[in-house]
């Protein structure tokens, strides 16, 4: 969060922008990033914003030391219109409904339930959370396009931890923060 604030205030990053046209969109983007950062497992390592094509990169340091990045790009417009851009950037997080171990595939070695880019229907299985030897399906609560599976196969997850990021078909509903 603090890194984000710093970036916002830095002249270097935002110099040359036409604030009259882009200020509003920028503020929207920053709010969206703040939200993504807030629900993320840790402080991000790096946040990059490019307003022209409205691309945003947030990078987290992972336990294994491999940086993973979530790149969100609106398919159509430049995002300058604001409003609808919010939800696309925020995405919809499917969060862990219980403490357990996350599995991305139905069995070891099998292809994963979903991959980035896949389109999922509401109720479609996204993964498994094993708790007390019981396999609990993780299902999509909204239809949309899978942006990223945020947790590795076989990783322990806490209640409320974001597991799958979905770009919802119906972007007007806003993101759902599952009680976190």
């Amino acid at each position, binding site marked *: 969060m603090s890194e984000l604030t710093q970036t916002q205030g830095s002249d270097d990053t935002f110099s040359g922008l036409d604030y009259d046209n882009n200020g509003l969109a920028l503020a929207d983007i920053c709010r969206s990033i703040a939200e993504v950062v807030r629900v993320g497992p840790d402080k991000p390592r790096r946040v990059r914003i490019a307003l022209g094509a409205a691309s945003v990169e947030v990078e987290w340091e992972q336990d294994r030391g491999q940086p993973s990045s979530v790149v969100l790009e609106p398919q159509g417009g430049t995002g300058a219109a604001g409003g609808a851009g919010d939800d696309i950037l925020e995405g919809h997080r499917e969060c862990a409904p219980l403490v357990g171990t996350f599995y991305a595939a139905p069995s070891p070695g099998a292809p994963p339930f979903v991959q980035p880019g896949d389109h999922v229907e509401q109720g479609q299985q996204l993964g498994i959370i094993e708790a007390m030897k019981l396999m609990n399906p993780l299902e999509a609560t909204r239809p949309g396009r899978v942006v990223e599976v945020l947790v590795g196969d076989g990783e322990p997850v806490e209640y409320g931890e974001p597991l799958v990021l979905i770009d919802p078909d119906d972007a007007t509903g806003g993101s759902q923060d599952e*009680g976190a």
Partner: protein
Amino acid sequence: MGFGTVLVANRGEIAIRVMRTCRELGIRTVAVHSTADKDSSHVHAADAAVQIGPGAPRKSYLSAPAVIEAALRTGADAVHPGYGFLSEDPDFAEICAENGLTFIGPRPEVLARLGDKAVARSLMTDAGLPVLPGSPGTVDSAAEASDLASRIGYPLIIKAAAGGGGRGMTVVRQTSDLLPAYRQTRATAQAVFGDNRVYMERYCDSARHIEVQVLADGHGTVLHLGERDCSVQRRHQKLIEESPGPGLHPQLRSAMARAAVRGARAIGYTGAGTFEFLVHDEGFSFMEMNCRIQVEHPVTEAVYGVDLVREQIRVASGEALRMTQEDLVPRGVAVECRVNAEDPARDFAPAPGTLDEFVPPGGPFVRVDTHGRAGWKVPPQYDSLLAKVICWAPERDEALDRMDRALAEFRIAGPGVHTTVPLLREIVADPVFRAGKHITSFLDSRDDRQG
């Protein structure tokens, strides 16, 4: 064989208190927390923390699968349940064992037998402990209730078999109130404990609540650590506790201690436990047994110089108690006041809010167990206990003077935040309490007088 990692399946002051002892023993600690407790002090006090569910206790602190999962994934060897929540749940204790985790408390079958208050009553009767006249088991029909009531006499009390913590009990003073009270207590018991069975007992208006602390290991040693007087209660909720019980006849005191040890031995109890007795005109009677560490355990720790949580952990890991009864000599007087976030002006309804200011007292012989801190928002979902102030002194009067000094030092403020501190100070100054002549109806009748 000591534990490497202990998961503390609780929140608030007791979670922190358990973690402190673990740390002293070189044991790694794991906290579990709900989403409402993300930033609570017990989370910060632990070496690791796992978010196990949403704010509602049923889906977090009371969820055995969530707690077990958290224990397994953090490599815990044992689970300390604190008080309340899962602390006296035999199923939870059994699930712990099935998953290779040591439950720090008595064995599941002991918990199951003592958790049913009606069964506990008959077990203790068999062990030779005195009980009040009452139903031999649960009272399962209105006709049975009427029949038994005429034999027990009035006033009587109807209690939930699965009850505890002062909830699920109704005092009945005349025949016309019996059946409505019977139905209502069953309904409450069903709602609160998921078990509508109730039992009945004679009720004493003029009685003291005295409880005996016991400590037992798995090698046949059962010890007592004297008594606590918990007679200052508001609607069966304890507010002030002290050890030893003021003005108790030495013979009565030792008879109760012997009874508690006999009872614990009879049921094969292990760990720390408490026998609750009523002391009345005709002597004393067994009420129930609490199979956990209790809120008011610090007063016993203060007068005996024993860390009860440490002993619980040692006993659970299979060690034998290192002390003998002769080693346990009480010294001085310790008093505990419960500072709750409650509003006296709104009938002591919980008054949660953000603590703008929170400065606990200190100084000689003052102990404060709390999870409060300035800037923290007291969540509305949980118990209103915010802090326990414990004062020790060689004599009771000095301990009470010290308590008044400590309570006066306690600075708690925030929008909408009210506490029991003003009431506690009034009680500490009350001549009846000062004289040690208070009985369980002291506070409620005092409220009525002022009311």
